[in-house]
C-alpha cells in the first residue's frame, strides 16, 4: 500500500543555541488524519523541534515542507496562517481577558475598525458548544480552573486552523499539543482525547507530546522518538511495546526503574516531626489533623482540585490558616510566612515552576542559592568558595544539564529547571520536604531519578510529603497515604501490600473509610 503524502515533512533539521546543538539532523514527518506522538527525555529536543515548527525559533539548517511545498516559517503568525496551531504545556492565555476574547484574539469580528462584541460572543459560544463545553464566554479566563483554561487554549488553536482551512490556505491542518494533559484529571483527559479523535477523523494531523506513556498508547497512531537532539526511531504505536519504547527513549534498559522496588511499611512511631490540629482555610481545605515523622514519606492522593496543594501551602506558611495549630518538633509554631517555615526546616517545591519557583532573569547558580541565601539574610552572603562548591555539588548530584552554573535558568528544559528548584531546597537541609507534583511534565529518566532521591532522602531521616496525580507513584514511594476528596482530608492509611491503586481510588470516589 502506497503511503499517502505527508502533510508536514522536516528534513535534516539543525538548531544550535550558543554553540550547543539542540537538534542535529532530525527528520520528522506527519501524515494527515493521524495522532503522532513526539517522544524523548527532557532536553532531547522535542520543545526545540516544536518551536521551530511554530516559528518561535528559526532554523540553522534543514528544510520544512507543508503539503510538499517548501515553506519558510518566520514567526508564530506565519505558522498559524500556514495552518500550524499550537497549544503549549503552560497555558498561554491572557488571564484578565474573557474566554471569548481569548479564543478569537487577533481574529475579532470587526466593522469599521471597531470590534463587534455581540458577534464575538456569539462566535465564541458557538465554538465552545461545538467542543462540548458549557462556559460563560464573557467571564475572564482566569476565573476558570487550569484544566478548563487548557481546553480553551485548544479550542483557540483548533479554531485558528479551521479558519485557515475555510480561507483555503492550502488546506493543511496541523495541531501541536505540547503536554496538554499534564494538568488535567482523568475525566478531562477523556474529553480531550475524544476531541482529538474527532479532529483526526476529520483529517487533521495532530502532534501530541506527553510524558504519560499510557496516554500515548491510548490515543496515538504513530510515534517519533528523539534522544539528545537526534532522531532515534519512527514507529507505528502498535509495533512497539512500552518497555521497548522506554529503552529507546533513555538509551539504556530499564533496570534503574525496576530496582526501585516498592518500599513501605516502616512503621512510623515516636514523636512526630510535624503535627497539625484542626488546621484549615476557608475555600482552601477543611480543617485537618496530620502527623509526619522523621524518615516518613507521606503521600497525598486525590483528584485535581481536591485540596492537595492547599494543604501543602498551609504546612509551608504560603497561605495563612483560619484556625488550628501546627507543632514542629513538639513545639507550637506560627507559620505566618514561608520564611517562618523555612527557618524551622520545612521546604516546599511548588507545582507551578514558572510562576512560583523560578526567577527567570537569574542564572542557575543564583536560583539554586536563593533559598539558602534568604534564610541567612542579606547581611551574610554565602561565601563565594562555599557557594560555588555547593552549587557544583548539586549540579553534579542531580545531573543538571547543561552543567553550567552561569547559564540563565530560563534556557534549561523543564526537567532540568525542576532539578534546579530541588537543589535550591536540598541546599537548605530541610527536615521536611514538601514536593507538589515534582515529576509532572518531566521525562521517565528524570522521574526515576527524583523518585530514587526521595527514597534515599527519607532513608537519611528526612520527612517527605509527596503529592502526585499519579497513584502508582504515590503507592510506590509512601509509607503513609493521605487521601483527599472535595477539599477534605478523608483518610490516612498505612501503606502495605494490601493497599492497591484500586482501594485508594475507591476512597477517592466514595470518600468513605476509617
Amino acid at each position, binding site marked *: 500500500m502506497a503511503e499517502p503524502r505527508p502533510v508536514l515533512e522536516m528534513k535534516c533539521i539543525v538548531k544550535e543555541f550558543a554553540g550547543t546543538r539542540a537538534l542535529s539532523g532530525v527528520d520528522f514527518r506527519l501524515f494527515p488524519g493521524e495522532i503522532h506522538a513526539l517522544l524523548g527525555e527532557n532536553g532531547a529536543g522535542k520543545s526545540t523541534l516544536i518551536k521551530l515548527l511554530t516559528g518561535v525559533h528559526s532554523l540553522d539548517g534543514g528544510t520544512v515542507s507543508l503539503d510538499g511545498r517548501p515553506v519558510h516559517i518566520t514567526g508564530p503568525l506565519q505558522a498559524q496562517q500556514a495552518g500550524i496551531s499550537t497549544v503549549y504545556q503552560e497555558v498561554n492565555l491572557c488571564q484578565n481577558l474573557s474566554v471569548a476574547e481569548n479564543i478569537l484574539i487577533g481574529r475579532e469580528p470587526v466593522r469599521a475598525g471597531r470590534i463587534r462584541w455581540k458577534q464575538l460572543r456569539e462566535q465564541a459560544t458557538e465554538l465552545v458548544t461545538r467542543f462540548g463545553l458549557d462556559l460563560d464566554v464573557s467571564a475572564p479566563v482566569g476565573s476558570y480552573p487550569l484544566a478548563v483554561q487548557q481546553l480553551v487554549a485548544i479550542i483557540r488553536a483548533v479554531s485558528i486552523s479551521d479558519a485557515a482551512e475555510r480561507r483555503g490556505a492550502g488546506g493543511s491542518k496541523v495541531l501541536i499539543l505540547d503536554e496538554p494533559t499534564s494538568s488535567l484529571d482523568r475525566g478531562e483527559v477523556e474529553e480531550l482525547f475524544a476531541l482529538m479523535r474527532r479532529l483526526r477523523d476529520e483529517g487533521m494531523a495532530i502532534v501530541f507530546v506527553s510524558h504519560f506513556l499510557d496516554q500515548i498508547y491510548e490515543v496515538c497512531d504513530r510515534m517519533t522518538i528523539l534522544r539528545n537532539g537526534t532522531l532515534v526511531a519512527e514507529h507505528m504505536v502498535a509495533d512497539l511495546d512500552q518497555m521497548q519504547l522506554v529503552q529507546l527513549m533513555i538509551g539504556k534498559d530499564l533496570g534503574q526503574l525496576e530496582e526501585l522496588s516498592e518500599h513501605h511499611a516502616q512503621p512510623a512511631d515516636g514523636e512526630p516531626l510535624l503535627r497539625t490540629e484542626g488546621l484549615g482555610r476557608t475555600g482552601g481545605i477543611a480543617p485537618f489533623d496530620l502527623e509526619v515523622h522523621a524518615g516518613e514519606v507521606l503521600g497525598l492522593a486525590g483528584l485535581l482540585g481536591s485540596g492537595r496543594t492547599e494543604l501543602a501551602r498551609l504546612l509551608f506558611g504560603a497561605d495563612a490558616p483560619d484556625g488550628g495549630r501546627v507543632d514542629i518538633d513538639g513545639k507550637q509554631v506560627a507559620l505566618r510566612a514561608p520564611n517562618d517555615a523555612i527557618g524551622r526546616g520545612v521546604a516546599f517545591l511548588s507545582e507551578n515552576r514558572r510562576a512560583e519557583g523560578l526567577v527567570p532573569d537569574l542564572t542557575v547558580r543564583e536560583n539554586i542559592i536563593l533559598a539558602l541565601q534568604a*534564610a541567612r539574610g542579606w547581611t551574610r552572603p554565602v561565601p563565594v568558595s562555599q557557594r560555588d562548591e555547593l552549587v557544583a555539588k548539586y549540579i553534579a548530584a542531580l545531573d543538571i544539564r547543561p552543567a553550567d552554573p552561569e547559564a540563565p535558568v530560563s534556557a534549561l528544559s523543564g526537567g532540568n529547571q525542576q532539578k534546579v528548584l530541588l537543589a535550591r531546597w536540598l541546599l537548605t537541609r530541610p527536615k521536611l520536604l514538601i514536593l507538589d507534583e515534582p515529576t509532572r511534565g518531566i521525562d521517565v529518566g528524570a522521574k526515576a531519578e527524583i523518585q530514587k532521591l526521595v527514597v534515599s532522602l527519607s532513608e537519611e531521616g528526612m520527612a517527605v510529603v509527596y503529592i502526585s496525580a499519579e497513584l502508582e507513584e504515590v503507592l510506590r514511594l509512601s509509607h503513609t497515604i493521605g487521601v483527599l476528596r472535595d477539599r477534605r482530608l478523608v483518610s490516612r492509611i498505612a501503606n502495605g501490600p494490601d493497599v492497591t491503586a484500586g482501594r485508594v481510588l475507591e476512597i477517592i470516589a466514595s470518600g468513605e473509610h476509617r
Partner: protein
Amino acid sequence: MSLSSLWRAATQHRLFWPVAALIVLLLINVPFTPGFFEIHLKNGHLYGSLVSIVLFGSPLILVSIGMTLVIATGGIDLSVGAVVAISGALACLVVSKQADQNSVAGVLLSFGLALAAALVCGAWNGLLVARLGIQPIIATLILMVAGRGVAQLITGGQIITVNSDSYSLIGGGYWLTLPFSLFVVALVVVLSMVLTRRTALGLLVEAVGGNAEASRLAGIRSRRIKIMAYVFCGLCAGVAGLMISSNVSAADGNNAGLWIELDAILAVVIGGTSLTGGRFHLGGTIVGALIIQTLTTTIYTIGVPTQTNLVFKAVVVIIVCLLQSAAFREKAFGALTKRRNPARKDPGASVDAAPQLEVSP
C-alpha cells in the same frame, strides 16, 4: 581577525553603547567650545567643562543610584524631586535659624535633620508599596505632589537663603583641588556597590524584581527588601537635595529638583536596567546620568534655542535608547554591514545570532 573579535566583544559589552553615546555627546561640544576637554588649575581648584559636568551632575547621579535599586525591585519612585526639595528646605531653614551660620555643628545638625526627613519619606513610600500593596507609580505620586507642598510649608512659601561657607561646601565647595560633591558621590557609589554586591542584597533585590511570588516562597522577606530600596532611594534624594541647595546657598521649595525623577528614570533605563525589574546595573546608571547631564550642558553650549530645549533632549534620548536595542541595531545597521562585507559570511551570521538570543525570553 583578533581585532574584529575584540571589537565584537567590546560592542557586546553592556556598557559599550552608553559609553559610546557619552563620548559622541562630549565630542559634539568641541567645535562649539574651544578647549572643551581642557582642565585648568586656578586658585588651587580644578576648572573645566568636564569638571562642571561632574559637579552639576552629582545630584542626578545620586538620585539615579537610588532609583536603580527601586526599579530593580519592580517599582518606581516619582517622589525623589519632592524629597530633594524637602531636604534642601529643612536644612536651609535650620542653618538660617543659627546665630552663627558658619558653625559646623549647626550645619551637621541641619544635615542630620534633612536626612532623617528623607528617610521618613522613603519609608513612607516603602510602606505604601510593600505593606499596603499600592502600585508604586501611584504610591509615590502621592508624595511627589504632597512633598512639594511640605517643602513650601517648611520655607513658608519663600526662598530661604543662607550665608554659610560650611553649608556651601557639600554642593559648591572644593577639597583637594576637586569639587567636594565628587567625594560625596564617590562615597555613595562605593557604598551602594558594597551594599549590593558584597552582601546578598543585590541578589535578593534582583530575585524580588524578577519574580516576587517565587521569591516569597523561597523565603525572601520581599517586603523588607522593597522598603529598604525605597528608604535608600529617599536617602540618596536627601543628599542630592543638600547638594542642590548648598550649590546656590538657597532652598526653593517650588523648583529644587524639579523633574529630576524623570531624568533619573531615563538615566537608569539608558544604563541598561529594565523598568520591569530584575537585573540592575549601577555602573550603567552612572554613565546614563552623565549622558543626561552632558546633554543638558551641550544644549547650553551649542546654543539650542531655549524653547526647543526639551524637544532636543527628547530626540537625543530616543536615539540613545534605540542604539541600545540589539533588534534596532540589526535592522538599521545589519543590512549595511552585510552589504559592506559580503565575504565575511560566517562571522556576520554569528553576530546576527547573538541579538536574537537576547530577544528571545
